[in-house]
């Protein structure tokens, strides 16, 4: 295996807009908001940026095709701009493009941006669109995202012979935790603490998921400026550097859908991306070596099964770990310290970069005491795009120096 990009790329600056129902703002306003913070944090000028990648998923609502929207919104100086799209991993894909550009030596300073303007859809949830092409529309159910992910619960329950009541208890704790964390985050979409009873009693969206098992559908943008560790050290002498330890993406081969081995209780792509990422980062025991994670908690059940796919909870043990508080903000591996997709919100193209924004700022200890992770060690972000039977998983691991 090639060496990967471990320690070849440093994050020079990051920015993130306030997420939420930004009725008065266009995608360009969200991008500019994140860009101002990002540029200020990096300590560079716009003209220093040599290339850019923009992640976006529902382009017809957000920014259209191609790279022009970002170049125009920020009036970038005639540099290459590429729009990437890989479902909910689009933000991480933009980051990957930027990191690879730096690691390859093609450019010194590169911008990775993500944006999504979901509140122009006109109704709750994601728009109904043929994300796997027109043929799948003829064969597949007229399903929604919660319905697709909800099936993880029925399959997980059958596989491990764990009653649905216990699964419901665990996923309720997940949402409760995210609300606790999100309430402390001034940029989060949902900032209210709610009780486990309110969560458990919320009306069903897709069995067994209730309303509070589903993430916020939000508008938002997040960005990173990346460079080499050498250049970063020049810009920021005597400061800790956040470096990329691993960046891996895995895409479904069709095995989950058409072959009969996958049991539907977890994600093959997450397992594969995690395996490769741990190898790239030199991690032997993720449960001990990783201090915080931002996982793709589009639905509470997704977060639950991901804990096993990431090899942090042993198979069949995620519900117990969750209920025991292992993933709480003061737990051993803090999960979703910023409130996650659940409460920070989920503007699809921005989410991967928003997760990195949280890990980056936690590593640099920039948050107030009450929302800091105890012992951040290495931080991991995880995105999951598509649906459990056909998807993209991305994993990025960041660490200091």
């Amino acid at each position, binding site marked *: 295996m090639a060496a990967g990009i471990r320690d070849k790329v440093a994050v020079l600056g990051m920015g993130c807009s306030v997420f939420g129902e930004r009725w008065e703002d266009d995608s360009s306003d969200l991008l500019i908001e994140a860009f101002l913070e990002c540029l200020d944090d990096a300590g560079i000028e716009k003209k220093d940026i040599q290339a850019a990648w923009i992640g976006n998923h529902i382009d017809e609502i957000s920014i259209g095709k191609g790279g022009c929207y970002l170049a125009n919104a920020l009036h970038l100086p005639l540099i290459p701009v590429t729009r990437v799209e890989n479902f909910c991993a689009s933000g991480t894909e933009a980051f990957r493009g930027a990191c690879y550009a730096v690691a390859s030596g093609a450019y010194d300073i590169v911008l990775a941006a993500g944006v999504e303007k979901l509140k122009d859809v006109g109704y709750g*949830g994601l728009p*109904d669109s043929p994300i796997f092409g027109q043929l799948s529309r003829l064969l597949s*159910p007229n*399903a*929604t995202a919660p319905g697709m992910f909800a099936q993880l619960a029925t*399959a997980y329950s059958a596989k491990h012979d764990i009653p649905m009541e216990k699964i419901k208890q665990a996923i309720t704790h997940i949402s409760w935790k995210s609300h606790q964390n999100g309430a402390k985050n001034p940029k989060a979409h949902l900032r209210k603490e709610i009780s486990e009873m309110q969560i458990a009693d919320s009306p069903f969206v897709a069995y067994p998921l209730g309303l509070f098992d589903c993430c916020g559908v939000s508008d938002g943008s997040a960005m990173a400026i990346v460079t080499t560790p050498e250049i970063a050290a020049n810009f920021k002498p005597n400061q800790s550097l956040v470096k990329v330890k691993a960046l891996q993406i895995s895409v479904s*081969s*069709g095995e989950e*859908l058409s072959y*009969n081995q996958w049991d539907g209780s977890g994600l093959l792509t997450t397992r594969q991306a995690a395996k490769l990422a741990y190898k790239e980062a030199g991690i032997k025991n993720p449960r001990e070596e990783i201090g915080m994670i931002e996982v793709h908690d589009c639905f509470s059940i997704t977060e639950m099964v991901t804990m096993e796919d990431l090899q942090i909870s042993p198979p069949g043990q995620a519900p117990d770990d969750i209920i025991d508080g292992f993933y709480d903000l003061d737990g051993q591996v803090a999960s979703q310290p910023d409130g996650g997709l659940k409460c920070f919100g989920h503007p699809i193209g921005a989410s991967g970069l928003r997760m990195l924004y949280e890990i980056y700022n936690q590593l640099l200890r920039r948050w107030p005491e009450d929302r800091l992770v105890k012992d951040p060690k290495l931080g991991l972000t995880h995105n999951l795009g598509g649906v459990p039977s056909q998807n993209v998983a991305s994993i990025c691991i960041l660490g200091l120096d």
Partner: protein
Amino acid sequence: MLVGISSFAGYIPRYRINRMQIFSAMGWLNPAIIMNAAGDKAVANYDEDSITMAVAAGMKCMQGFNPADIEALYFASTTAPYRERQNANIISGALAAGETIRTADFSGSVKSGTAALLSAIEFVASGSGRNAMACASDCRIGKVGSVQEMVFGDGGAALLISCENVLAEFKGAFSMACDFVDHLRGENSKYDRQWEERWIRDMGYDRFIPQAIQGLCDKYSLQIADFKKVIYPCYYGGARKNINRRLKIDSEQVQDDLMMDAGDTGSAHPLLMLAASLEDASPGDKIAVISYGNGCDALYFEVTGEIENYKNRLRVTDSIRNRQDLDNFQKYLAWREMLPVEIGMRGEEERLTRWSLVWRNRKAISSMQGTKCLACGTQQYPPQRVCVNPECGAIDQMVPIILSGKTGKIVSFTSDMLAATLNPPAIYGNIDFEGGGRLMMDFTDCVLEDLKVGIKVNFSFRIKYVDPKRDTTFYFWKAVPAKEVS
């Protein structure tokens, strides 16, 4: 050459409305409908229509037979979803009948069911082919509060006509055609319109049915008493009694008209009653089947010894037993677009059907044709060119395999309140096909409580979506949990 019926099946949809429920809702408008308020009206599910019901009957009819042997398929209905685009082709595709067959739609009268049947018989009798299918179904609607609303029921029937394994030989027919307009439905009408009931009863049924039966008897030198069963539709109970009395049709000879269990299923009705009668038939039985609609066809069958091999395949009876009360009249109205309802903006999304894409994938869509890898034996669906087995990966080593008639097993499931549907919640999940292959698909004719990982499902051809803008109905298969019907 012996020509006749070699297989048969009826299909009555799962949902029933007890007619008293309609009376409770609409009796204020038309108290006279109390006269028709006994029994159940069979109601096609929101995703069923005359095509899907014909396929359901056809699938049952073809059990144990090779669909590739069908050489002609005739479909009769007055409620076929397409005026131009052959409905019979959609049915033959779903049944995996092959593309080198003769197909035709029959319509214009509820007599069309027997017209299709006679054509199928004549196709085989003429030596044009060895097997033909005649299927018929109807999903007629009456205006809210009308007698038709009470008496019409939804259902279908299918008969395999053959010169082999004939269990009821066709002996002859007598037909009459009259432009007797007791009711009509014009090109642009959704609902039936009829003349005075007394006229329909006294000048219609009461005259034409006896004429047809007598004509048949005279033509073949038979007495009515020679028939084990005399089958004819007539939803006026009084008129039916009167006809039986006048013609001296003994109570033993009267085939139940299914009005208490289903209602008048239009084009399908004589065929459905015939299928029901064959369930109890014995060798040597003579059966007369009469249709009614701007004239009559009267057909004469004689049951052969082959019927003994068919005894364990009770079909119409199964359909009757597999019933679920539709305890909500408004739901019925919404399903038939008689009550405009809000299903949300998701329900308004574009449903343009890309016909070239449908053509390329027609076999995967119509009969769920999958592939089986010759290199490793893995059966797969949707069809693949590159073997999905990670250990194999062979390219273009596939042979086709039809999965629609197989069973499946639930891998995962949910019920979704967010998805747009006329029958929320939408229930769907991953299904493993018996023998291999997997598909995430819609479930129908069930509720969440019926489902469990690992249980068996059957596949039913249903409406996948309707595109009102382009007047398109698109069909695909859905999973139905297999139930023991007691």
